[in-house]
């Protein structure tokens, strides 16, 4: 089914664009169980390791004049701090560590996925859904703990005409519960689509007649993917901030 996508090479060279997303056990060929160490495990661990490397090892010196690693870490810290402050307000800063963790993890998982022959963990909805569900549950629990029943004011648009409010309540309710879906699929879909496009171009590169064009195209798409990897991490984080603002200050 749809296997002829990347098989233009003839001569037995066939690259299926979705093959790069297959979850395989790291050791041996056994079935993938709950606790099997797979390539996903490896690259998730590498992403966490890179975050630790940047935020712990690189900033260890605490120099007044920062080293290269330290200035990157400081830049990231300042960037996210300002974002949380701008979008969620000052009382959102209490949740800054969580948002910083999310951003760094996603940005490193995305960038590690761009290394050729690596595995892109964020292209799997299983990974992003956990991140999005964690945000969703945090927002829900936080909203009810902070505001009690007043959190339901999020669905009751008090500025609208009275006759319109039940209709708007239904729309708001649907849009609230679709949030974890769109939040996770946006990240996974963008990353997966980009990597699949790269593989399709790679399949074209096997045909001698169009190879130079395909390679130029790949360079362009790769540059775009570097941009997308950062922007999607940014978008995920900023939407987390927006949802957090809803939890802290419901009502319109």
């Amino acid at each position, binding site marked *: *089914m*749809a296997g002829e996508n990347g098989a233009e090479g003839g001569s037995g060279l066939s690259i299926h664009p979705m093959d790069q997303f297959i979850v395989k056990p790291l050791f041996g060929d056994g079935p993938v169980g709950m606790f099997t160490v797979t390539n996903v495990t490896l690259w998730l661990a590498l992403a966490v390791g890179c975050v630790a490397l940047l935020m712990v090892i690189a900033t260890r010196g605490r120099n007044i004049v920062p080293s290269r690693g330290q200035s990157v870490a400081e830049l990231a810290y300042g960037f996210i701090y300002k*974002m949380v402050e*701008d979008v969620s307000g000052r009382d959102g800063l209490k949740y800054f560590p969580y948002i910083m963790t999310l951003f760094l993890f996603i940005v490193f998982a995305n960038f590690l996925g761009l290394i050729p022959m690596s595995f892109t963990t964020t292209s799997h909805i299983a990974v992003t859904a956990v991140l999005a569900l964690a945000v969703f549950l945090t927002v829900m629990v936080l909203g009810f703990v902070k505001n009690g029943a007043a959190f339901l004011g999020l669905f009751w648009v008090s500025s609208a005409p009275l006759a319109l409010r039940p209709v708007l309540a239904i729309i708001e309710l649907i849009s609230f519960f679709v949030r974890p879906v769109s939040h996770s699929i*946006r990240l996974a*879909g963008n990353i997966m689509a980009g990597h699949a496009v790269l593989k399709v171009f790679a399949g074209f590169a096997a045909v001698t007649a169009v190879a130079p064009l395909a390679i130029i195209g790949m360079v362009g798409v790769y540059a775009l993917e570097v941009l997308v990897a950062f922007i999607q991490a*940014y*978008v995920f984080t*900023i939407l987390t901030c*927006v949802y957090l603002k809803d939890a802290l200050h419901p009502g319109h």
Partner: protein
Amino acid sequence: MEGDIANMGQFIGAGLAAIGSGAAAIGVGHVAGNFLSGALRNPSAAAAQTATLFIGIAFAEALGIFSFLVALLLMFAV
């Protein structure tokens, strides 16, 4: 030509679902274009609205990604 009618429907459906990606592209272009036309009128206010720009783009794009997902599901999962 071989294969059954269900396969054909699958491919046609996936192709139709891909139209949604184009529609999302229109939406994203609309957001970015309107941001730019506003930003050029009042450049000093533009920097503060970049976050809003990205949120708007993200919302417009999400639905396109949904249609992409439907196409993928039709191709590989059904």
